[in-house]
């Protein structure tokens, strides 16, 4: 695996994705005890997870368009929450 720094985002931008990341982790924890027969919780979880994933992907799409980071087929970007650095990770 190859990891290369390709850019950086502003602190408020990093805070936005970190909040979404933590929310997604929380929802994934909740999913461990969730089953489809729990109708109320199922509806809420699916809605919340759908929105969170959509915002998460939207952040990457927006930032990629704004900063024009280097990309590669088969690769993906990662962010370091401590430094706001963006890395291109190649398998």
């Amino acid at each position: 695996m190859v990891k290369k720094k390709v850019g950086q985002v502003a602190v408020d931008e990093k805070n936005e994705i970190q909040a979404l990341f933590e929310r997604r982790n929380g929802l994934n924890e909740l999913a461990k005890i969730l089953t489809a027969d729990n109708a109320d919780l199922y509806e809420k979880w699916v809605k919340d997870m759908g929105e969170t994933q959509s915002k998460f992907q939207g952040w990457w799409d927006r930032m990629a368009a704004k900063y024009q980071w280097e990309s590669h087929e088969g690769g993906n970007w990662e962010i370091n929450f401590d430094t706001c650095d963006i890395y291109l990770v190649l398998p």
Partner: protein
Amino acid sequence: MIQYLVILLDDTSVSFCHYGNAKKERRLMPLETLKAGILFGMKENLNIQFVYPAYALPEAYDAVIEGIDHVKIMPAATPEGADVLVMNGWKECESWTAGAGVSCVLRLPKAEWFGQAGRVAALLEKTERLNVVLTDVETFTEDDFKAYERSLAEVANLLEKAYMNGKTPQLNLLTDRMMLEQMNNCGAGDTNITLAPDGKFYVCPAFYQAAGGYAIGSLAEGLEIKNAQLYRLDHAPLCRHCDAYQCRRCIWLNRKATLEVNTPGHEQCVAAHLERNASRQLLLAIRKHGTFLPDKREIREIDYLDPFDVRKEW
């Protein structure tokens, strides 16, 4: 890594690939199974693709499906809301008018494909993307290979003219290879799995809807793909060296032809290489008119049609 979950909503959900659906009686996926499948997909962060039967679903199903991001694969009989529309044979194409952003899958036997370049061009006027799936590729003979080569050249000529007129139609058999720089195959059992109405997971819809398939776990017991590495390209001794990047490398056809999920039969390899070579000619032809896909490498000339024939060189 699994990225896609295909959910068959009914036993009679439309086939969008090489296999024919042997199941003729309706059996709708229970609503609780559908919800549990969606939950599984979202927990695993999978893109969900719903495959529809040729009848309208109960409203409660629509409400559950519309609650999440998804792709709808639908038969021509019920095209409303489709992202991917499946048509069986030319007859189903006649009355069809595409909505914006709808891809089209045309399934047909070789006899209906040969010599029909004009019809292909006409269909490409109606959709931005056409995926042609030959439903009997495993029966190709030497004469069929020659006919296939001719038909690809005929369609390529029409595509060249379309590109010269500023259009950019996509036809999987000819334009995908021009854009690709690595294998882009079916990925069943590797990048995608299928959930059937019985609540079990399958390698792909064919492993449920056609004869002789097997399950790879269930919603109740979890996913269990035995020898999962055998579905991956890096464990495919022939395909990992191949550059017919557009090849379907259909896992179901592989197993049918060679009893190995990871090894295609001769017919699939030759057909894919005829497509590759026709793509090469198309790319060269378009580039004669000016700059085209400047960041893409030329497709090199090769002297074989079945990688098995040159296995010792690899």
